[in-house]
């Protein structure tokens, strides 16, 4: 029982992170109908930047943890958005009217490029950062197993919930949200109505990158170790989450993230930790085979 609750908490935390990354996949997919293969690496870039700025700010003598967190979040979100913008501008926009294979390949090229760029400029070693928020709440003890709720876990869940509320408001209440949804429906018509489609797509990439940046900072704070290769697996898992929830559906991405986080957490605890990644891949393949529209997505009608 105790271990079960513990895994539930761990799974929830992990799921929140996957959900944040999955939102980026789902938004970009919604607007351009393509998977952003470089999204996992944008997340990795943000985590590496979080390490740099946490180290830099502590060297500059900032000791207040909340201030530090806010500063790091703001800086990393801003910089990562520019990375998201650049990804769209170089790997997607020039190919918008190209064959269907071309943007996929350029995006994979971008993913390989980003990963190796970080390896070259930042080094291949694992980067440890000191824990910003040490300690945890002891919830209860059952059968000699104490269930912990780490402060970082509380932080991650709180930040994720706050972001989701803000984000939903952005999509449903603001003019950007309306333009974004209009582009999803019909890009040509939206352009004819005088809306700057290019700008909307750019902003969507930036927004996706910003959410990935939050996930990157949270993961850095939570695990305390980051390296250049984390984007690959996290990317696939978040993508699986997006597909599981129904690609194109924002609540679906979050739901999918939570499910994938739970599965990973329970699988590692009760079955075999070595095969936890295999479990995700198998889920991905099964979902795509049997329910490609996911849990909350709408089925696609092929246009003839």
């Amino acid at each position, binding site marked *: 029982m105790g271990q079960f609750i513990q895994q539930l908490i761990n799974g929830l935390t992990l799921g929140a992170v996957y959900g944040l990354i999955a939102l980026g996949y789902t938004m970009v997919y919604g607007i351009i109908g*393509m*998977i952003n*293969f470089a999204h996992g690496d944008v997340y990795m*870039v943000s985590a*590496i*930047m979080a*390490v*740099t*700025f946490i*180290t*830099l700010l502590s*060297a500059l003598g900032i000791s207040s943890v909340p201030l530090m967190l806010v500063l790091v979040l703001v800086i990393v979100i801003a*910089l990562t958005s*520019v*990375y998201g913008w*650049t990804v769209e*501008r*170089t*790997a997607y926009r*020039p*190919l918008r009217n*190209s*064959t*269907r*294979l*071309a943007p*996929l*390949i*350029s995006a*994979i*090229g*971008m*993913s*390989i*490029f980003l*990963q*190796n*760029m*970080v390896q*070259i*400029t*930042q*080094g291949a*070693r694992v*980067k*440890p*950062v000191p824990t910003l928020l040490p300690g945890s709440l002891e919830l209860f003890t059952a059968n000699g197993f104490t269930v912990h709720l780490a402060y970082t876990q509380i932080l991650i869940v709180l930040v994720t919930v706050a972001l989701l509320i803000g984000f939903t408001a952005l999509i449903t209440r603001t003019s950007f949200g309306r333009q974004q949804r209009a582009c999803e429906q019909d890009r040509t018509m939206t352009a004819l109505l005088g809306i700057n489609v290019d700008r909307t797509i750019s902003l969507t990439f930036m927004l996706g990158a910003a959410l990935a940046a939050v996930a990157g900072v949270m993961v850095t704070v939570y695990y305390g170790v980051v390296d250049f290769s984390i984007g*690959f697996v996290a990317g*696939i898992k978040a*993508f699986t989450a997006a597909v599981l929830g129904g690609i194109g559906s924002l609540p679906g991405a979050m739901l999918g993230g939570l499910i994938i986080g739970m599965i990973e957490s329970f699988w590692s605890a009760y079955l075999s930790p*070595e095969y936890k*990644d*295999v479990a*995700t*891949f198998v889920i*991905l*393949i099964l979902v*795509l085979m049997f329910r*490609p529209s996911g849990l909350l997505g709408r089925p696609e009608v092929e246009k*003839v």
Partner: protein
Amino acid sequence: MGLLITQPKGAAQRLKDGVGAALIALVLGVPMLGLATADVGGALAVITRWPLLAGFVGVVFVGRLFFQWLIDIFSLRKKRREQARPAVAKSRPWLTWIGFAALGLAVMLPIAFSGNRYVIDTATTVLIYVMLGWGLNVVVGLAGLLDLGYVAFYAVGAYSYGLLSTHFGWGFWQTLPVAGLLAASFGLLLGWPTLRLRGDYLAIVTLGFGEIIRLILLNWTEFSGGPNGVNSIPRPTFFGLPFKPDSDDGATFASFFHLEYSPDHRVTFLYYLILALALLTNLFVSRLRKLPVGLAWEAVREDELACKAMGINVTNIKLSAFAIGAMLGGFAGVFFAARQGFISPESFVFSESATILAIVVLGGMGSQLGVVIAALLLVVLPELGRDFSEYRMFLFGAAMILIMVWRPGGIIAKREPTLRLGAAA
């Protein structure tokens, strides 16, 4: 690095554009080039590299202006060329000649560099990639299916030989067809449920499949030896004659031909072996391309719905491309295991799939000769210097983006028709 395509502009606008690109480069560069974290005395510390960042920003600024200028010239030329383009697809015999010349060079290479083991070894590696490239070209170039887990089939081939030879004493030639069939079955197994999916879903599923195979090989120690892999895999023999120093137990290659034993014999033999396998692959694929199935692969790449309307079973066509590509990958894997004598999951990581994909993409999707040129570039360039090999994947990634943006067809972009009415008459 950022903005690549724009309209021709005036000087002031160009300058503004260059400054914009430089500013973006600055923002992108600060956290990656300007700042870095490094281990200083046991703890992480931030180091700064402002000169590097300044250099990068400068290069982007100048490069942006230069490329703008270049694009203007190119787009003008392209317009002129398009106006002059003849309607009928021209036959290009010189490509065939280049092909034959390359073949001649390949055959002569061990003679020209006899005794230079390094050159022959590198050439063997190039040929492995050429063969893999030709195999993947069926899937990506002809059928237009993006397979990001091609290395899984290569691994199936390699482990088939590794395990069958060490456990059951199977020989190279015995294993080759079995491994090919096994790899093809894996291709069908993966393709059957997933080939109905959209292109980008297929890409990510194949990526996942490649990782599943690698993770299983890594973790299922009783079966595959886990991270230690499979050791002392027997080397291929020359029709039963082993390549080893003279000894009492039976004839060897050297004793049979009354030669003095030299380890170079095996290296040379392996080179010719992969050359023969690669040529067979080429022959096989070029013949298939001219058959109905090859034509249907390309038609599926061009328009699936139109294929269905013509009564073509699109799933079967895709499956056949997938299975044949997988089989060729399996063959290459068998050779790889036989050549190395040792295999481990390390050799079958995603970056290997990415390298093969880069070869196909850079060479020109669907072009056989393009694959050779790209394989040569991608294998030989990193050999030129240690520094270069560190930047290998980095440059592949960049090249994939640039090629897609500027020349989506690759080095050899133009497709050669499979038949002509004039020639057929």
